[in-house]
C-alpha cells in the first residue's frame, strides 16, 4: 500500500499522472517473448565463443598449449592472455579487471578464465576447449575470510601490503586495506553504559541470482570499430572499460544494452565481454558468448562473505552510549572497498555520541566480488541490528522503542561523517510500531523480528533526449538501463511535464552512439537521475513550443505559457487567441523551424539517503530446522513514488532476495577450494511457493534536491532482511542466530548446542 499523504506538497505541485499505475510499456513484449535479452540477437557469420576455466583454486600457469585446438576444423580463433596485452599499466582497478577476464601467470580461483575459443558452433567450441592443455602448478589456497587473515595464510596476491596502516607493513598479507570511521570517544562511552553486549557474527557468500546469465554478441572489424550487444546495467561503462582494455577508441565501440533479466549489481562489471571482443577481433567475425549457470556462479561477481565483531553499550533508560564494529569482508582475489562500505553503513541508522567502525578488506581465492544491491550493508546490518535487539532485551525495552529512541534525525552526525539533513528513519519506525503486523498473534514455533537499514543512493552523469514527432507523440531516449521500470517512470514524468497522456510517450534506452555518457544504473540512480534529466529536457522542448506559438501569434514568447499540454497566450490583450495544443504545434513544426526537441546533460548529485524498516514473522520446524517466512512487511522512505507499483516491486524483490540470503543461499567450498554448489539445484534461491505476500508501505518523504522529490528506492530494502529474519528465527527457537544463512543444519546445530549448554549448567 502507498501512503501518498505525507509531505508531498513541498513543491506545491499537484501531480496529474505521476503517482499513477499505468501498464508497463515493456510488459507485453516480456510475457510474449518478443523482448530481446542478451542471448537473443544474431549476426551473419556469427561464431560461438567458449571459455576454459581453471579447475584449481590457486595455481601457477606454467604453460598453455593451444596448438591442437587451433587445428580443429571449425575453430576460428583461440585466445589467451597474450592476446589481451596489458595496456593499463600493470596495476590498479582496470588491471585487476583485465586479469580477472583472463588469467595471466596464475589462476586465482576455481573458475578463473585461462583461455577461450571461437568456433562455428558450440560443439566445436567445447571440443576445442578440451584440446587446450594447461600445465598448472597447484599453489596453496585460502577461501575463508578469517583464515585468510592469519599470519601463515597462503598469500593470494604477492606484494599486497595493508593500505592505510601506520607504520606501513613490511610483510605481504591478504589484508588489502584498513579503513576507520566514527567520532567521539568509544572507551569513555562504554564506561557510561549500564549494559554492554558484544557478539561475533558471520555471513556467507551469496550470488545476486539474476535469472538471465551473462551474454553478449561482439563484433570488431579490422578498422578497429566494433559493436557489442550485451546484458548490462551500464553500457556506457562497459564501452569505456572494454575500449580501455582492448585499445579501441571509445567512440568507435557502439554498445547496446539488451533487455536485462536481473542484475542487482552483478551486471555493473565486465566479465567475459572483453574476451568476446578479443575473440571477434582475432577471428574477424562476430562472436556470441553466453555463460552457463555454472559459469555465472563460478566466474561472475557474488557478494562478500564476512565476519564481524559488534559491540553496543547503553544506559538502562535506553540511550546508546557507544558502539563499535570490527568488520572483515573478502573481495575475492582483488582489492575492493567492500569492508569499507560495511563500515560506513553499519551504524548509519542511529544517533550515536561515540562510534567507531573499522573495516578490513581481505583477499581470498574466490571470484572477484561485485555489488549486490546496497553493497556490503546487509551483512553489517545483520550484526548491528541483531546486537541492537540483544541490548534492547537486556534493558527491557521493545526493539522498536529502543531504535526510535536512538534513531538518527535531521542534524545527527552520521557514523560515516556528515551531518544528516531531513531523513526518514524515524517515520519508518513509527509506521512499523503502528502497523497491525506488529501486534498480530503468533503461533507455536513462530517468532517475529524487525530491523532497520540504510543506503546512500547516488545520481551521476546522465543524458536524455526528447523528440516530438509531427503527430504529437514523443520519443524519449534515456541512457540509464531500465532495470526496474524506469521506462514507465520516465514516460510518466514526460507526460506530467508536457501535459499529454502516458500512452503518447515512447521511452527507449539509447545505445552509446545516441547520447552522451550515462553512468551505470547502480546506486538506485535510474529514476532519480534520468527523471531529473527528463524533466529538464521536457521543459526545454516546452520552451521551443512556446516560441513556435509566439511566432504564430506574433507576440513575445514571454507572453506564452504552457499549461495542460497547450500553449496559452497570457493577458487580456490576447484573450481572443485560442490555445495551441502540443499536437497542433508539432504538426506545424516542419514549417515553423523544424523538429522540436529537448535535451539535457547533467550530473545528478544529491540523490538523498534512504532508510527502511522491515517486520518479519517465521515459523521454524524444531525437528528439521526448516524455516518458513509466514508474513513480511516492508516500510521504506521512497521520496515521491513516480510509479508506485514499481516502487512496491523494488521493495518486494529486495525482501525476497533477502529471505533467500538469510535462510538458504551460500557458496559452499570444498577443502580443495572448488565451489561445490554452482547451480540452482544446490544453491537454493526462494521460489514463489517459499514466499508469503510481501506487504509494502511507501513513505513519501520528499528529497528536496529533486524537482519531484524523488529518492532512490532499489537498494535499501535488501539491507534489513538478514537481521529481521535473524531476530524472527532467534525469537522462534530461543537461540540467538549469529551465522547467515540460517539454514536447517545451522539451526539444528544451534539448538543442539543450546541443549548441551543447558544440560551442562543443570549438571554443574
Amino acid at each position: 500500500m502507498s501512503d501518498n499523504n505525507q509531505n508531498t506538497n513541498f513543491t506545491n505541485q499537484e501531480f496529474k499522472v505521476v503517482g499513477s499505475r499505468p501498464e508497463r510499456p515493456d510488459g507485453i513484449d516480456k510475457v510474449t517473448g518478443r523482448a530481446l535479452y542478451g542471448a537473443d540477437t544474431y549476426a551473419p557469420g556469427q561464431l560461438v565463443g567458449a571459455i576454459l576455466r581453471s579447475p584449481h583454486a590457486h595455481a601457477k600457469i606454467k604453460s598453455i598449449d593451444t596448438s591442437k585446438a587451433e587445428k580443429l576444423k571449425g575453430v576460428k580463433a583461440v585466445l589467451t592472455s597474450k592476446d589481451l596485452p596489458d595496456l593499463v599499466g600493470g596495476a590498479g582497478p582496470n588491471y585487476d579487471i583485465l586479469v580477472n577476464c583472463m588469467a595471466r601467470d596464475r589462476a586465482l580461483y576455481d573458475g578463473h578464465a585461462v583461455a577461450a575459443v571461437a568456433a562455428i558452433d558450440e560443439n566445436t567450441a567445447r571440443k576445442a576447449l578440451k584440446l587446450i592443455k594447461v600445465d598448472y602448478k597447484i599453489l596453496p589456497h585460502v577461501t575463508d575470510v578469517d583464515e585468510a587473515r592469519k599470519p601463515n595464510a597462503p598469500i593470494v596476491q604477492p606484494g599486497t601490503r595493508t593500505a592505510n596502516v601506520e607504520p606501513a607493513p613490511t610483510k605481504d598479507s591478504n589484508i588489502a586495506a584498513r579503513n576507520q570511521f566514527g567520532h567521539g570517544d568509544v572507551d569513555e562511552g562504554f564506561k557510561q553504559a549500564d549494559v554492554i553486549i558484544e557478539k561475533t557474527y558471520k555471513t556467507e557468500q551469496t550470488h545476486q541470482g539474476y535469472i538471465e546469465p551473462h551474454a553478449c554478441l561482439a563484433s570488431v572489424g579490422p578498422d578497429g570499430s566494433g559493436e557489442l550487444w550485451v546484458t548490462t546495467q551500464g553500457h556506457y561503462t562497459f564501452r569505456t572499460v572494454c575500449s580501455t582494455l582492448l585499445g579501441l577508441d571509445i567512440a568507435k565501440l557502439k554498445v547496446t544494452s539488451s533487455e536485462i533479466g536481473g542484475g542487482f549489481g552483478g551486471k555493473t562489471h565486465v566479465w567475459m565481454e572483453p574476451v568476446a571482443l578479443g575473440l571477434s577481433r582475432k577471428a574477424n567475425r562476430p562472436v556470441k558468448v553466453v555463460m552457463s549457470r555454472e559459469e555465472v556462479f563460478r566466474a561472475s561477481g557474488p557478494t562478500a562473505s564476512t565476519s564481524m565483531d559488534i559491540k553496543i553499550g547503553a544506559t538502562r533508560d535506553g540511550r546508546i552510549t557507544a558502539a563499535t564494529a570490527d568488520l572483515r569482508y573478502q573481495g575475492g582475489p582483488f582489492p575492493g572497498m567492500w569492508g569499507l562500505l560495511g563500515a560506513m553503513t553499519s551504524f548509519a541508522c542511529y544517533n550515536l555520541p561515540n562510534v567507531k567502525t573499522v573495516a578490513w578488506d581481505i583477499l581470498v581465492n574466490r571470484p572477484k566480488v561485485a555489488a549486490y544491491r546496497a553493497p556490503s550493508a546487509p551483512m553489517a546490518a545483520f550484526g548491528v541490528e541483531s546486537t541492537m535487539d540483544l541490548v534492547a532485551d537486556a534493558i527491557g525495552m521493545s526493539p522498536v522503542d529502543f531504535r526510535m529512541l536512538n534513531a538518527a534525525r535531521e542534524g545527527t552526525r552520521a557514523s560515516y561523517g556528515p551531518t544528516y539533513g531531513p531523513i526518514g528513519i524515524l517515520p519508518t519506525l513509527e509506521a512499523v510500531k503502528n502497523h497491525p503486523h506488529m501486534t498480530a498473534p503468533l503461533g507455536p514455533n513462530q517468532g517475529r523480528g524487525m530491523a532497520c537499514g540504510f543506503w546512500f543512493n547516488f545520481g551521476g552523469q546522465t543524458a536524455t533526449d526528447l523528440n516530438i514527432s509531427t503527430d504529437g507523440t514523443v520519443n524519449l531516449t534515456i541512457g540509464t538501463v531500465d532495470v526496474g521500470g524506469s521506462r514507465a517512470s520516465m514516460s510518466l514524468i514526460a507526460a506530467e511535464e508536457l501535459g499529454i497522456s502516458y500512452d503518447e510517450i515512447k521511452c527507449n534506452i539509447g545505445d552509446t552512439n545516441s547520447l552522451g555518457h550515462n553512468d551505470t544504473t547502480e546506486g538506485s540512480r535510474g529514476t532519480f537521475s534520468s527523471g531529473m534529466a527528463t524533466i529538464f529536457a521536457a521543459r526545454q522542448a516546452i520552451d521551443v513550443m512556446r516560441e513556435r506559438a509566439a511566432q504564430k501569434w506574433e507576440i513575445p514568447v514571454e507572453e506564452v505559457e504552457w499549461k495542460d499540454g497547450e500553449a496559452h497566450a497570457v493577458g487580456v490583450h490576447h484573450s481572443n487567441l485560442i490555445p495551441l495544443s502540443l499536437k497542433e504545434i508539432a504538426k506545424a513544426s516542419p514549417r515553423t523551424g523544424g523538429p522540436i526537441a529537448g535535451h539535457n546533460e547533467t550530473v545528478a548529485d544529491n540523490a538523498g539517503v534512504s532508510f527502511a524498516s522491515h517486520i518479519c514473522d517465521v515459523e521454524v520446524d524444531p525437528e528439521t530446522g526448516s524455516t518458513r517466512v509466514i508474513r513480511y512487511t516492508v516500510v521504506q522512505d521512497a521520496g515521491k513514488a513516480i510509479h508506485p507499483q514499481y516502487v512496491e516491486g523494488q521493495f518486494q524483490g529486495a525482501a525476497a532476495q533477502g529471505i533467500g540470503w538469510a535462510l538458504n543461499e551460500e557458496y559452499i567450498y570444498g577443502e580443495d577450494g572448488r565451489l561445490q554448489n554452482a547451480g540452482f539445484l544446490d544453491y537454493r534461491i526462494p521460489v514463489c511457493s517459499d514466499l508469503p505476500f510481501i506487504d509494502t508501505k511507501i513513505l513519501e518523504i520528499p528529497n528536496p534536491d529533486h524537482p519531484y522529490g524523488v529518492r532512490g528506492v532499489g537498494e535499501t530494502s535488501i539491507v534489513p532482511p538478514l537481521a529481521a529474519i535473524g531476530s524472527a528465527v532467534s525469537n522462534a527457537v530461543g537461540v540467538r542466530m549469529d551465522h547467515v544463512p540460517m539454514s536447517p543444519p545451522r539451526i539444528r546445530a544451534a539448538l543442539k548446542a543450546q541443549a548441551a549448554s543447558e544440560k551442562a549448567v543443570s549438571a554443574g
Partner: protein
Amino acid sequence: MPDIQFSGAVRQAVGDVASIHIEATTIRELLRKLVERHPRVQSLIDEGLAVSINGHIYRDGWTTPIPPDAEVFLMPRVPGG
C-alpha cells in the same frame, strides 16, 4: 569556511588528522588546494572521492559552490548495486 573533515584513507593521506582548514569556494578549488598541501590525496581523487557539503553528497559536481560556514566532509566515492 570551517575545517574540512576526513576519515578513512583520506585521513591517512593528510597525516592522520581529523580536519584541516582550507579556504575554497568550490569543490574543485578545495581539492586542488588539498592536493597542493597533501599530494598523496591525488591518488585517492583518481580512485574516487565524494564531497559532502552540509550533508549533501557530491560525487561528480566539482563546480558545486561551497557556502561559507558549510560543513564539508571528504569521503570515499561509494559504488552501488
